[in-house]
């Protein structure tokens, strides 16, 4: 060991190491800036190109051969209907599965397999879900290239997101709440439905919103199903004038969605169509940002308000 008396030497070494600290701080801020600036550039580029195209007509016109009169009417209607199917399918199944794994599941091999499997499903590329939907929903079950097939494909895709969010929200509820309910004679389901689900609802909702925001932007699985890129009509209306007032005809209708419409416009060589793509992209980004922002806000509120 060197002598420690050499104070000058020690000071020098420390200041050298502190310089590394500073350098790394700068590197960190620089890396963060790259991410921030890229996003700014992306947003600004779309804003400049797309903003002039954004008008009321853009939302109420069908796609067209003439770029200046083309719009996203069929696309946003299609996206809304597909999301409806996705939410109806993924929310009950995801919550049910999360509740089962957290509250009901015995500790055995099957439970472990399910848990590992949920993690693995989250890592499967989205286009693979498209292939599954193509083989299973479109051909084997005969749904055709329809809103139903697309909605179910996206539901499978976001299922792990909803499951994980549900589990985390339920796990954060202290065990004393359960013990209190059981002590009063509540059954398992009464405990879950009267206590655990209401207390975890904000967390579950956050997960659902994040999942749906992801589903809105997913393009690959829907292309794989064979969604048409040029749809100049709307699916049949779900509400009818005569009895029974609701119709499910729209489920089997051909459709297009926002990201597919945008992809279609991006891949055209004419610049005018690329301006349309920018406008559609702007709508899409604002939609997903708003949904993700809502989820982040909900989580923030939750963390602030709930103190067990």
């Amino acid at each position, binding site marked *: 060991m060197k002598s420690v008396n050499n104070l000058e030497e020690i000071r020098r070494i*420390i200041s050298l*190491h*502190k310089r*590394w*600290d500073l350098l*790394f*701080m700068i590197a*960190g*801020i620089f*890396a963060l800036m*790259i*991410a921030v600036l890229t*996003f700014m550039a*992306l947003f600004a580029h*779309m804003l400049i190109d797309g903003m002039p195209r954004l008008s009321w007509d853009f939302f109420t016109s069908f796609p067209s051969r003439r770029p200046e009169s083309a719009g996203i009417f069929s696309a946003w209607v299609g996206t809304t209907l597909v999301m409806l199917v996705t939410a109806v399918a993924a929310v009950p*199944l*995801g919550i*049910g*599965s999360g509740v*089962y794994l957290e509250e*009901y599941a015995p500790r055995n091999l099957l439970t472990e397999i*399910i848990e590992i*499997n949920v993690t*693995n*499903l989250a*890592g*499967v*590329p989205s*286009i*693979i879900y498209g*292939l599954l939907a193509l*083989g299973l929903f479109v051909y084997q079950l005969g749904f055709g290239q329809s809103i139903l097939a697309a909605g179910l494909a996206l539901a499978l895709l976001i*299922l*792990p997101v909803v*499951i994980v969010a549900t589990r985390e929200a339920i796990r954060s509820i202290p065990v004393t709440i359960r013990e209190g309910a059981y002590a009063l*004679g509540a059954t398992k*389901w009464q405990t879950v439905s009267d206590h655990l689900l209401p207390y975890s609802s904000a967390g579950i909702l956050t997960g659902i919103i*994040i999942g749906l925001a992801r589903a809105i*932007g*997913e*393009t*690959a699985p829907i*292309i*794989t*199903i064979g969604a048409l*890129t040029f749809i100049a009509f709307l699916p049949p209306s779900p509400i009818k004038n005569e009895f029974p007032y609701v119709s499910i005809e729209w489920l089997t209708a051909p459709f297009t969605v926002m*990201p597919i419409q*945008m*992809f279609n416009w*991006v*891949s055209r060589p004419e610049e005018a169509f*690329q301006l349309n793509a*920018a406008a559609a992209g702007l709508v*899409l*980004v604002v939609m*997903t*940002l708003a*949904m*993700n922002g809502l989820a*982040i806000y909900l989580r923030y509120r939750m963390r602030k308000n709930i103190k067990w």
Partner: protein
Amino acid sequence: MAEESHIKIVPAGKLGYSFRRHLRERFIETFLFMSAVLSVAIMLAIIMMLVKESFIFFQHVSIWDFLTDTQWTPLFDDAHYGILPLVSGTVVSSLIALLVALPLGTIIAIYLSEFAPFTVREVAKPFLELLGGVPTVVYGYFALLFVTPLLQAIFPELPGFNLLSAGLVMGIMIIPYVSSMTEDAMRAVPMNLREGSYAMGATRFQTAIRVVMPAAFSGIAAAYILGISRAVGETMVVAIAAGMQPNLTWNPMEPAATITAYIVQVSLGDLPHGSIGYQTIFAAGLTLLLITLVFNIIGHVLRKRYREIY
């Protein structure tokens, strides 16, 4: 004794075994169990579907040709079924993406977890999360119409479709996944390890690199594996910005198709169900699933072997 009058006397029968209530409990439990098992069924369905269609495909094309032929032209008259060109496109674009995403994601994670003041972290984390929520088709648009022209200003001979721009944008896209998981892993390292290190006179940087990162290794490995899976399975950015021509090349300045881009290209056309062209996308999908599966297994092993328990 006044409180006693408030207690209702419940007939003993109501507290006893109720068949209806029991039935409802069992019914609900069965539904919950079924929805949990569904995730396993989905995985099995994916594997069965891919294997079934690929099996028919491999009756026409030998596995040897599939793995060694250097041309992928299933839709031409002179059909070749060699997956290599698609694999090379996937590998090159993923490598570029990872060269961007892993270092930057790690630096951001270390900065946010060990250096950044509270307010910076509170603002940066949600922002990164928003960045991860931008649809991939939008990133594809950005790669084709912003990054490629920018790169063409530096490399004038760069073609309009190229792997470089697609890979770079993909890398930026993956940063949030890598950084948020890495940061979570680093923050899970107990404080007393850091305090011990500081007490020995180590600086923040030394503590982060030599104490926190090794302690968080299993989590960081998981983050990297997830990043790799994302890059390999990413579809829209490469389909839009890298072109869809299968091209056996290791040069990022050339256009090429990835496995995923090929599936998109076929799906955009109008292939009849049951044709060999239809089966090729399942064979390509199976290849993709196997690649991501290998990385998932590696991740699992790394996590198990290097897990530190405090």
